[in-house]
């Protein structure tokens, strides 16, 4: 999971793209250590230290990981795309953005 996301973030570093996490871990210190070790550079919301946190609840998340992909207008465009499908989804939206700005 992490290596894939790491490479996505790295590949799109100079594009209008962001990976935003919502983390449901229990122990913040453990998490910080793990993030350092795994070189997780993207920002995450801390969801109160449980899988029943307010954000996960509001988004009806019952399984982890759960993925949403939003376009530049904040509209939900893809759900639960993983691996290559995630890359494809993001690339398609970036391309769409470029298309719009040319017009």
């Amino acid at each position, binding site marked *: 999971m992490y290596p894939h996301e790491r490479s996505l973030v790295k590949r799109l570093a100079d594009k209008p793209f962001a990976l935003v*996490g919502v983390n449901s871990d229990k122990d913040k210190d453990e998490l910080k250590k793990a993030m350092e070790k795994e070189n997780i550079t993207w920002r995450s919301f801390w969801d109160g230290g449980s899988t029943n946190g307010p954000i996960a609840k509001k988004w009806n998340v019952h399984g982890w990981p759960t993925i949403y992909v939003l376009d530049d207008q904040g509209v939900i465009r893809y759900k639960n795309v993983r691996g290559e499908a995630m890359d494809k989804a993001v690339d398609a939206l970036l391309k769409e953005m470029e298309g719009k700005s040319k017009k």
Partner: protein
Amino acid sequence: MRRLLLIAPLLLALSPAVWAQDKDKPDKPDTPAASAEKELKELNADFNKAQQELYKPLQDAKSQEEALKIFEKEKIGEKQAKMIADFAKRALAIADKYAKEKDAAADALIWVVTHAESGSEKTKAIDLIIHDHISNKKIETTVLPRLVGMPLEDNEKLFRAVAEKADTPDRKATAKLQLAKFLKSKAEAVEQVKGLDENTKKMIEMRVGKDALAKIVSADPVKATAEAEKLFESIVKDADKESISASIKANAESELFEMQHLAIGKQAQDIEGEDIDGKKFKLSDYKGKVVVIDFWGNW
């Protein structure tokens, strides 16, 4: 999850827990109801045996591709369709023979409906249930939950009939909830089936029938979604006027919220919170960028 529902019956032997439950009951004298129950139990045992026999060649398959090859070579798809149709005919005969024993006849029809995906026997069983057994509690408690992820035409007829004919507010709300979920899965199935790999598609086609699968794909997802949303809305609205159990209302509300705020094409709700270091930030800070939201945990 729903994708699994559509495929699961193919890959696993159907193991109907419903039928196993009655096994410990002591033998009753041979009333018509008892004979009917016995005949149905025998049918079920024979079916399980026949099914095991049929799937035997698949046991050695190491991959889905291999399984599909065996499937085709041994003509398991065709045999399966014929086997299910034969057993469905037998169950229909039991329902007919014991038509006066309402519960027993209903059980036999339920067997057909929960084992056959399509075909004339299934259509007939659904029509009979709608006509004679619509208020049988098992339809709501056992049958509909099992069919909710199988967006087939005959099933839809049953969901609609139950919703229409339910006789108390609570039953009506439950039936509407189930119909709405069925319609939601009908809408989702269109894209799901299109996205399946060829092998899985073939296996599903063998199970549900070519025509039935074509109908799943050609359904109008926008229309089905809109109707589902309206149903969820009306359940929530009615709940304020009539006594409907809180869990049904909560269920409808959560579905409605998901459709209105969490579905593809909807504006994402903002997230405001703190990051791991306690610094405040918002999802809307990223407007103008493509954003992947990743709900994750380091476990």
